[in-house]
């Protein structure tokens, strides 16, 4: 008996696999699609080559003054000369190691929180959150342990931006959580107070809040008590952000099934233990992406302190562009500022998406 043997199968038609097929399917599947492809290519052609020529090919990189900028492209010399001022503001040059050390400590200290295998994350995080601000304050401001004092008016640049953003969100967290709990409380008076607070701050623009901190806060305080400008701005930012954090946390609290509350109650836990041990650990984990997004918004909003005359990253750069010695290079300045902000915000938004994906237990089609 003869056995039938199949011939080897033919390769698929060359038009249906490989790059050609991909291009046909994604770029030229219909006349409209083809039109779009050409429109997109035209857009890219108009935008990208001139930008690259300006930023790289025709750019000037070396030199110390504007005389070095002769080739007609971007004058990166401007950024190079002012770079350290953009980073540290007027922080004394010989003391900048203290800023670097503060940032290093933050990174080293926060690293374990991002490791999956780390045990006892919550107590560690709490301890870090309590100890680090004190250490950072001592390092940055000085005046203790033989460290020379650096007034906050000398703080500036990216460092100040980071200080405002992290203190703003860090200070807003506890208040925001309390407000979120208050908003979901069964006690009407507490609920009304919290809702009023949250809706008030969410309803006004940050700029008016900063105005308020600079002109109204001094009126609110008793005679002879005055805050420094940075602290006033920080208080304003904290109150403002607390309202946003509260809404984010409320979202997390609402996502916890009722059974969890009932189970905790059945175990005989009181309100604070129920929240602290059962509900909040679950809810806060759910809202990490939301909190990161709030942080991104705040990070962008720190640029508003220009209104009250603080020299954050953006204001340092803006002031440099109106310096008579460097007039006419505002585009370079703003592009650099945009790049720095973009790197931070984009990085954080990627992280938030990553967490969201990890937390997402739903099914996708």
């Amino acid at each position, binding site marked *: 008996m003869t056995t039938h043997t199949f011939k080897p199968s033919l390769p698929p038609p060359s038009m249906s696999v490989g790059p050609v097929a991909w291009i046909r399917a994604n*770029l030229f599947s219909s006349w409209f699609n083809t039109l779009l*492809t050409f429109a997109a290519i035209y857009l890219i052609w108009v935008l990208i080559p001139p930008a690259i020529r300006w930023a790289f090919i025709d750019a000037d990189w070396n030199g110390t003054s504007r005389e070095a900028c002769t080739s007609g492209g971007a004058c990166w010399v401007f950024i190079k000369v002012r770079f350290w001022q953009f980073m540290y503001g007027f922080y004394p040059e010989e003391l900048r190691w203290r800023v670097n050390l503060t940032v290093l400590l933050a990174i080293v200290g926060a690293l374990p929180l991002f490791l999956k295998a780390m045990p006892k994350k919550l107590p560690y995080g709490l301890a870090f959150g309590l100890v680090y601000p004190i250490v950072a304050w001592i390092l940055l401001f000085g005046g203790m342990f033989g460290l020379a004092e650096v007034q906050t008016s000398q703080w500036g640049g990216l460092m100040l931006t980071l200080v405002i953003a992290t203190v703003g969100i860090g200070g807003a967290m506890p208040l925001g959580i309390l407000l979120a709990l208050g908003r979901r409380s*069964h006690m009407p008076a507490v609920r009304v*107070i919290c809702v009023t607070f949250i809706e008030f701050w969410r309803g006004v623009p940050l700029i008016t809040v900063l*105005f308020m901190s600079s002109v109204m806060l001094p009126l609110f305080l008793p005679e002879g008590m005055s805050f420094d400008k940075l602290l006033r701005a920080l208080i304003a930012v904290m109150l403002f952000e607390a309202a946003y954090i509260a809404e984010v946390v409320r979202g997390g609290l609402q996502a916890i099934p009722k059974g969890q509350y009932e189970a905790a109650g059945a175990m005989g836990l009181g309100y604070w233990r129920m929240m602290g041990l059962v509900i909040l650990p679950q809810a806060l984990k759910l809202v990490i992406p939301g909190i990161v997004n709030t942080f991104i918004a705040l990070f*962008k909003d720190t640029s508003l302190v220009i209104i009250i005359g603080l020299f954050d990253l953006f204001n340092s750069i803006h002031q440099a562009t109106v310096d008579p010695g460097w007039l006419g290079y505002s585009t370079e300045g703003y592009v650099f500022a945009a790049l720095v*902000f*973009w790197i931070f915000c984009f990085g954080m938004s990627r992280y938030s998406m990553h967490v969201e994906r990890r937390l997402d237990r739903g099914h996708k089609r």
Partner: protein
Amino acid sequence: MPNSTGVKPSSGSMLTDPKARALLFQVLSVCAVVGIGWYLFHNTQTNLAQRGITSGFAFLNNTAGFGILQSLIEFAPTDTYGRVFFIGLLNTLLVSVLGIFFATILGFIIGIARLSPNWLMSRLAAVYIEIFRNIPPLLQIFFWYFAVLRAMPAPRDSLAISDVFFLNIRGLYVPEPTMTVAFWPFAFGVLLALGGSWELARRARALKITTGQEFPVFFSSLALLVVLPGLSILVFGKPFNWTLPELRGFNFVGGMVVIPELFAITLALSIYTAAFIAETVRSGIQSVSHGQTEAARSLGLRPKHMLRLVIIPQAMRVIIPPLTSQYLNLVKNSSLAAAIGYPDLVSLFAGTVLNQTGQAIETIAITMSVYLTISLTISFLMNIYNKRIALIER
């Protein structure tokens, strides 16, 4: 009340009774809030008395005595602070409305391009979204204002678009319409056409429900909109006369000018907000599950009907709430105009008027309450809308 075992539940002290505790806690928190409020009020009173500032809103009737860069209603330096407030408010609303209009159009286009089957288009849209939403709006405003518009040529060397639009350092010059006698018949014609289309759509829906017959609503409405106003133009003449801007000496005469401040802030806010709207639109359309598309297809709906009857209504339900909050953000962000000196509410009222009068509390309170009113009104309307369109399940 004795229970089954006959043991009375311990009444305990007041402190272990949940109701009494809740009451106590509420009284305490109200006392704390009132106490803090009174403390601040007291300090403020003392401080104001010491600085010799009289509180109250009487200053609104005083003469302002300064000029304003742009006002939608007549303004002279002899007018009152009260009028300054209205001009600021109108300018804020102008920026907000313009911004919302352009951001919506741009946002929807980019959001749809993001979902385009064309790989290049969807990549381009993604790049746009990722670039513009991660750069602070204030920076974008400054970029357009200081780096682009302040670097424009003088009026003599304006950038001209077909001799109708001119862009120079003083702003964007556009033709100005002036109404003629024929305007009212024209406006009446437009209104009539709109009313007619609405009535037509209503009847067509009723016809479809009773008999299943289709009526070409879109084309007949379009015909109405072209014919009625067109007829009025034929009979009565042009509804508008356009005055073109014209270079005379060192500046342009005639036409309307969009000042660079307004131009920069509208451009920046539209571009910034459009990135967020695009994401909203994308996620809204993607939220309609694939099963819906498949079901619509298996019912034999054409792609056109599938979009209009199945996908868009469901997507809108997801899109509209975040869209409104984007609009609200845009209104709040319009206050950034203060940073480049556009005379909006914050810059005029919480800036100039505050500096001139020293009435810090009143001006800030009025400014904040305007934004609060806008926010609360919109979120109130939003809640009503949400209740109306919420899915009713079981």
